[in-house]
């Protein structure tokens, strides 16, 4: 409810409903008043007056508690009390702490008795004798706009007349007149002109951020024309390097960065397009008015005026200005996030273009500048009506434009067509070759059936019934019989989301957080191994509950690399006891999403048969002389949950809640029998379950007692003898609870008989392959046949089951008969070239129906003759070659796929006018506003904002109106400060009352007017400033001038300056001949919206030799070289960089790899020079590094250094002082000259 509404409601209620009281004439009985005096007044004084009475500096929240009337009127949120209705009274909500926002008193909740007293008092109708007079209602400050408009910065600049000066000869253009006039008034004279070497170094760095080359210097020195300097300036302004240097200056104002910074740091991978746009348009000398309009409203500019489709895209890209700011992307309070983003936009826009700080007005009228909250929310409404974000979720998503053009679309279509052609060719070729292959194999049906049947046996009843069993399962090539597998997304009950489309073909997975429950009917109680197949990038452990008991809190906790089908992997989760009949298996995760679980498998885990128990048999220490010994430290398990404390594997959880296990992968190269031995110690028997290749072979393994847990007591024990085929095998040991202290595990080749065997129904891949080769079959198809037969077992009503249940010999005979018959029929069908399985309609015998069924399966696309995964490797060689050729062409084509770019930017949103947020809080709304601009700027007649428009276009027009008092002044001041080191007004982002007054307002105004009249041309302003005598002064010191004007506010000399962060780096690369001048593009190797810092992310590299402007700018993780050299932190707006001298800069110069590398390259460069003497080399070095010749003193001291350093380096190094030694010595000299002040300071 709006406060005023609440107020009226309470008033109406009060006047008409309650015992006929009127507010003015409230009369209370003596008891009520006594209650107030004895109970309420002391509480109010003790707890509330500090902030809500005239004792306070101001009434907090606008609320006074000094009279009944004041309480009824209330504060920002409306009436504090509603008499007789404590439940509707804000006061009660606040003191009961039942609301997040107001909790009063803020330090401590009142004692319960006091809360009860207030409640009773309100129930009594809030009797209160205090008169309204007691509370002095102070009037809020009212902004006097008329008076404010007299402030210099709010008056439209007028072109002042040129002042008179004495030394006319010094004046090159009007700038000098203004400067000289001030100097002459202070009886100062301008410094002498800088010499030509100084000047070319100064202006080259200034306009391009790079040092002049020796050739450039010599050309300039040789140019005797009076226009030599002008020619130089023109050359530099036309250089593409200019846009890189000056565009970057604007990027400081635009707080450009490649990540959102702040909390969750996500890559703004497409922000670079805004940066490239800025570099490009600065090079093109786009008028500043157009530049401004494009940045605020490029998307709204009339498309008719676009010169080209590219220009249209540039205009969309330009709006990135509003989008690339720092943002909190993770905030549970989405409304706050939105208002914070709007606030950042207002702040940036108003300071960048108007030099006004608006932030204060978010909470209250600006205390100094004439900016009421009303104006703030008028602007905020414009940005609220603009769409910057797609959503405000945790983590929020910003809007991006697609940069499609008709050309890029055409290229895309052309590409797609080419790809489609290849796909069609490929498909045709594959269809034909596959069909040939398939038919050739189908003709071998009988052989396949018989060979496969040998891998399949039925030795017990299927373990499950009634569930949506999808078949027995072949995992990693190993058939797991007596198992049930089901799809995880087909749960009986649950809150998890079943996702079947996005994570891989035919892979349905679980998503989000919550639980899933599965009902599994089992015929037999017992131990069952549970396995899960899932994909996960992060570890997302789930809680496993079986029949109501939590059995493990850490299942499915592995990571597999991706969220997708390509990394779906099976993991054994443990062995659990299940009962006969219905079991409920529950997987759950709270507080975060689940891994992408695809399938669940249960397999009966029982020892098949035990021939001999050897587990407590002591063994000799295995010796490495045994060929084929496989020895492993116990703690080096492949997977496991047993605490790793070398050299002993020991359980550290000390609890029986968890399953402790370790899995070891062994690569067996020679098939045969192996004896498992392990080294362990334990004072009590802690035998566990031993699995070999997923099959339980011993339920009480490693159970021998050594008498101690001391590591000195470890002994070797035999664990059993197993037969292994060549290939990978897995041993797994597990126990629910604490474990023996394992030390080592060994597999030793042996001729002993196996002690455990796996029942003969456990075949591995290699055997299938062997059989296939022997029979002239393809292993891939044979495996599918095994798979097919296993499935028929689980689907018990299938016709083959009867055969499979027969005795082995009988079975083989029956299969042979069946196979022959089916093969015969199939061949007929294939020869007829029809896929119909009409069959013999006359014969209805049972056998015939089985034949019919088998043929149907053999022809079915998902039957045992379905196309294997790698079918293209099985088809005829000729076809294989053709297929490979097409696949390769397609890969080439795909690599050259035209990229469709995206750009960050804003667009129109839902138009909405905001009410003032009292104290910046969206929960306390005040007066409503309408989209609009600043009231104080009344000389610009604002274009009305159409009902359906956000108003950004009109805002941009308003800002670029020639009468706007701030836009041109603020911008020319920036240009001045970027050239001269200081502005004509020295707080470039604050032209308000708290900002500085200009040191030379006539000049500032003259420039501001001139700027507009020159069509807002930035390059035109450069020419004016650079060609002035003021710019060409030397930086020479003058004691008298320094005494009069120590801060050089009058510009009596040129300000010496340090190179900025980018210049330092670029100059190092330049003198090392190592700079890559390629323009544009993104160097951040990150996916859009990917995390760029924090644990687990790839580190961003800055190891490029591209110009600094193109390096990634990551908020919260800025390149440390940039940090050291006062780069503008893009998280705080900085119109003027700081300029410090700090030790990290010295450390960088002394010790960094970059300086070392460039010093080395520079040294090589100098050593390779075709000059004879060291003196000449020193000269070359000075010319490269400082742009001047070395003096004889320079040469002498360098000589001395080289000599001394050579001695030290010889001591230091073992090898002789040869060319390598020369390099070391010259590197030392180069490093010193690069670290010296002369390199990093410009006169």
């Amino acid at each position, binding site marked *: 409810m709006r406060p005023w509404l609440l107020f009226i409601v309470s008033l109406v209620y009060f006047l008409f409903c309650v015992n006929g009281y009127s507010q003015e004439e409230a009369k209370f009985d003596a008891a009520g008043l006594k209650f107030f005096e004895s109970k309420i007044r002391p509480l109010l004084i003790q707890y509330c007056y500090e902030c809500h009475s005239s004792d306070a500096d101001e009434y907090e929240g606008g609320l006074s508690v000094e009279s009944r009337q004041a309480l009824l009127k209330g504060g920002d949120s409306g009436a504090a009390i509603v008499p007789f209705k404590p439940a509707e009274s804000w006061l009660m909500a606040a003191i009961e702490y039942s609301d997040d926002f107001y909790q009063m008193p803020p330090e401590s909740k009142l004692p319960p008795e006091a809360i009860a007293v207030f409640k009773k008092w309100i129930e009594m109708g809030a009797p209160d004798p205090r008169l309204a007079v007691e509370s002095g209602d102070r009037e809020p400050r009212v902004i006097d706009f008329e008076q404010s408009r007299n402030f210099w910065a709010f008056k439209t600049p007028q072109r002042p007349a040129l002042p008179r000066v004495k030394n006319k000869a010094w004046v090159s253009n009007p700038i000098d007149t203004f400067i000289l006039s001030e100097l002459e008034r202070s009886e100062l004279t301008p410094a002498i002109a800088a010499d030509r070497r100084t000047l070319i170094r100064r202006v080259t760095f200034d306009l391009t951020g790079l040092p002049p080359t020796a050739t450039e210097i010599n050309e300039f020195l040789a140019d005797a024309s009076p226009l030599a300097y002008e020619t130089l300036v023109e050359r530099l302004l036309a250089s593409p390097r200019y846009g890189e240097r000056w565009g970057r200056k604007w990027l400081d104002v635009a707080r450009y960065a490649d990540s959102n910074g702040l909390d969750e740091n996500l890559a703004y991978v497409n922000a670079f397009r805004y940066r490239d746009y800025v570099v490009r348009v600065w090079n093109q000398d786009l008028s500043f008015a157009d530049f401004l309009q494009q940045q605020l409203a490029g998307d709204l500019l009339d498309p008719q005026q676009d010169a080209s489709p590219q220009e249209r895209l540039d205009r969309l890209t330009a709006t990135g200005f509003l989008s690339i700011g720092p943002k909190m992307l993770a905030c549970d309070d989405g409304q706050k996030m939105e208002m914070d983003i709007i606030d950042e936009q207002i702040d940036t826009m108003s300071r960048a273009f108007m030099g006004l700080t608006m932030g*204060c007005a978010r909470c209250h009228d600006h205390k100094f500048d004439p900016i009421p909250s009303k104006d703030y929310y008028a602007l905020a409404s414009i940005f609220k009506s603009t769409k910057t974000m797609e959503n405000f979720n945790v983590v929020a998503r910003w809007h991006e434009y697609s940069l499609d053009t008709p050309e890029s679309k055409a290229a895309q279509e052309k590409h797609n067509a080419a790809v489609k052609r290849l796909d069609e060719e490929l498909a045709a070729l594959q269809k034909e070759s596959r069909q040939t292959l398939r038919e050739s194999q189908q003709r071998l049906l009988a052989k396949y059936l018989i060979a496969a049947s040998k891998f399949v046996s039925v030795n017990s009843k299927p373990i499950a019934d009634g569930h949506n069993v999808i078949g027995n399962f072949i995992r990693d090539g190993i058939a797991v019989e007596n198992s049930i597998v089901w799809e995880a997304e087909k749960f009986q009950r649950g809150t998890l989301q079943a996702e079947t489309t996005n994570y891989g073909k035919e892979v349905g997975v679980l998503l989000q957080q919550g639980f899933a429950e599965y009902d599994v009917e089992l015929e037999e109680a017992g131990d069952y191994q549970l396995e899960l197949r899932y994909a996960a990038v992060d570890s997302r452990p789930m809680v496993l509950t079986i029949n109501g008991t939590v059995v493990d809190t850490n299942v499915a906790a592995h990571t597999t690399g991706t969220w997708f089908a390509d990394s779906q992997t099976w993991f054994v989760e443990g062995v659990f006891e299940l009962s006969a009949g219905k079991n409920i298996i529950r997987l759950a995760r709270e507080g975060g999403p689940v891994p992408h679980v695809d399938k669940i498998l249960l397999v009966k885990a029982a020892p098949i048969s035990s021939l001999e128990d050897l587990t407590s048999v002591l063994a000799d220490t295995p010796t490495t002389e045994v060929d084929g010994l496989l020895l492993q430290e116990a703690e080096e398990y492949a997977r496991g949950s047993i605490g790793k404390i070398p050299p002993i594997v020991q359980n550290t959880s000390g609890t029986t809640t968890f399953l402790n296990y370790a899995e070891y992968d062994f690569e067996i190269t020679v098939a045969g029998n192996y004896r498992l031995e392990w080294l362990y110690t334990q004072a009590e028997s802690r035998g566990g379950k031993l699995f070999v290749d997923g099959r339980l072979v011993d339920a009480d393994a490693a159970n021998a007692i050594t008498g101690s847990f001391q590591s000195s007591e470890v002994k070797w024990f035999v664990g059993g003898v197993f037969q292994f085929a060549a290939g990978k095998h897995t041993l797994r040991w597990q126990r629910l609870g604490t474990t023996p202290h394992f030390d080592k595990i060994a597999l030793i080749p042996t001729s002993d008989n196996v002690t455990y065997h796996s029942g003969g129904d456990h075949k591995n891949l290699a055997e299938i392959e062997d059989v296939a080769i022997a029979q002239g079959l393809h292993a891939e198809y044979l495996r599918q046949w095994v798979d097919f037969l296993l499935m028929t077992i689980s689907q018990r009503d299938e016709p083959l089951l009867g055969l499979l249940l027969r005795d082995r010999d009988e079975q083989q005979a029956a299969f042979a008969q069946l196979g022959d018959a089916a093969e015969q029929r199939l061949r007929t069908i294939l020869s007829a070239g029809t896929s119909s399985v009409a069959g013999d309609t006359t014969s209805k015998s049972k056998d015939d129906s089985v034949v019919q069924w088998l043929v149907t399966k053999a022809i079915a696309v998902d039957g045992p003759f379905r196309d294997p995964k790698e079918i293209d490797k099985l088809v005829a060689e000729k076809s294989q070659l053709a297929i490979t050729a097409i696949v390769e062409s397609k890969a080439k084509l795909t690599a050259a796929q035209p990229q469709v770019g995206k750009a960050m930017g804003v667009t129109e949103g839902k138009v909405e006018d905001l009410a003032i947020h009292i104290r910046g809080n969206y929960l306390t709304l005040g007066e409503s506003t309408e989209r609009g601009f600043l009231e104080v700027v009344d000389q610009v007649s604002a274009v009305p904002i159409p009902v359906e428009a956000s108003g950004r276009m009109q805002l941009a027009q308003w800002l670029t109106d020639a009468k706007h008092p701030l836009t041109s002044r603020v911008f020319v001041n920036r240009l001045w400060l970027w050239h001269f080191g200081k502005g004509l007004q020295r707080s470039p982002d604050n032209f308000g009352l708290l900002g500085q007054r200009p040191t030379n307002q006539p000049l500032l105004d003259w420039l501001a007017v001139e700027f507009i009249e020159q069509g807002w041309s930035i390059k035109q302003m450069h020419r004016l400033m650079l060609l002035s005598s003021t710019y060409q002064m030397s930086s020479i010191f003058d004691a008298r001038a320094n005494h009069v004007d120590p801060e050089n506010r009058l510009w009596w000399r040129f300000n010496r300056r340090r190179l900025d962060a980018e210049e330092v780096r670029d100059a190092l690369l330049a003198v090392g001949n190592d700079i890559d001048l390629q323009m544009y593009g993104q160097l951040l190797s990150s996916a859009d919206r990917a995390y760029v810092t924090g644990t687990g992310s790839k580190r961003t590299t800055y190891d490029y030799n591209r110009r600094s402007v193109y390096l990634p700018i990551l908020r919260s993780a*800025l390149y440390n070289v940039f940090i050291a050299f006062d780069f503008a932190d893009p998280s705080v707006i900085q119109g003027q960089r700081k300029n410090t001298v700090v030790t990290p800069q010295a450390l960088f110069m*002394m010790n960094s790899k970059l300086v070392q590398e460039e010093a080395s390259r520079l040294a090589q460069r100098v050593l390779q020079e075709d000059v004879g003497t060291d003196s000449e080399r020193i000269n070359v070095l000075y010319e490269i590094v400082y742009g001047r010749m070395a003096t004889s003193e320079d040469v002498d001291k360098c000589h001395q250094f080289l000599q001394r350093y050579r001695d030290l380096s010889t001591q230091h190094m073992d090898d002789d002082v040869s060319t390598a030694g020369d390099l070391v010595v010259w590197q030392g000299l180069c490093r010193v000259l690069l670290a010296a002040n002369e390199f990093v300071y410009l006169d």
Partner: protein
Amino acid sequence: MAGNSQCHNFLTQPLSRRAMLQQSSVGFGSLALAGLLQDQMHNGVLAAESGQAVGDPKLARFPARAKRIIFMFMHGGPSQVDTFDYKPLLQKHDGQPYPGKKPRIVSGATGNLLGSPWKFRQYGESGLHVSDLFPHVGQMADDLCVINSIHGSNSRHGAALLELHTGSDTFVRPSLGSWLMYGLGSENQNLPGFLTICPTLGHGGVNAWSSAFLPAHYQGTPIGAASIKAEEARIHFIENKWVSSKMQRAELDFLGQVNREHLEKRDTDDVLESRIASFELAYRMQNQMPGLQDISQETEDTYKMYGINEEPTKNFGIQCLLARRFAEQGVRFIQVTHSYKWDQHGNLRDAHTKNAKEVDKPIAGLLRDLKQRGLLEDTLVWWGGEFGRTPVEQGNKNGRDHNPHACSMFLAGGGVQGGLRYGSTDDYGYYAIENKVHFHDLHATMLHLMGLDHEKLTYQYAGRDFRLTDVYGEVKHDILA
């Protein structure tokens, strides 16, 4: 909250250019030209160069109780009801619905009350309750000032972490350490005055130790990062890998000569002079840091005390020991970080046990060591995370959600009362309700202990005075010794 609106007093005299430039030599927050008086170094140095007036931090100073702060930051949110906020009723009503109102803004869904899996014991003369997660810290109970009523404003890691370090959960602002450097400077001219050991780069990263709009030399200097072992952590560019130290010395001697001759041709320029000095300072720091980080000479007993000789305490133990060594050298603000582990939405029992085990002994070791060396008197030790956790469950009754409404931290030494339990939460530890201490109040109190008035320690930027506590904050005099 008291009305101490900030937007009034704005202009102080800008410092003279000469004074500014003299001080521009300082780096790493403190390194000054040799011979400069300490008092001269603390003002905003280059602000005048950017044409802005600055506040005068000297106006904010008064006699201090503590000279330095060691902040042991538990990245994430340690659960207050499982550590230092004993709630018998929570145990009693385990599994029942929370009877109060859950917050309007939450970060995730939660269930019923979850009793703490850990027992609480009383320790020392004071009888402070500490859970069995912190048996070693418990031994130091009589030195601890446990505050149970801390609260912040934001329920997400990034924002809460920034608010804890800078007072703002919305914008980039100078961190507490930077404000201290601005207000007090450093005691050691050869070392950074604000060090953060193995800090996290996530959740705001560098913003947690940045100086934001304060001059750059007030920013913290990171030693390594969270992903780097404490024993391998180094300051950027502190080592020269290319030449022998004699050769480097020769280079610097020559550099000095080249620079002086350059300067002679240019008359007076303080900046150029400062830069000459900065190389000598850098060289001294480069020489001093390896020795300070070399803990091999510490005794066996010290190793044991910090748990450096064993896992899992080794890494955090080394961080804590380094903190003591830097404290001895007069470093003003030292932060150690236990990397992002304290976030148990599930697996509370195991993970909180593991986390606590990694830090319990080192924390106690540091407190004991500081005490026996007499350093605890003027060192303020501060322990805490970015928020507390809910007393209600998540993660199948084995986890808790973020909770900015109640959080426990402790202070020790440096002018606070030991053996004190200050402030309290409701019966279940969901909300701070008595003697509430907002992050702003904590900041104000810590500045007070360091001898700074948080309302007067201001810096002008973007047209108004800023302070660490914005327009909030109240010194909690009740906890002062």
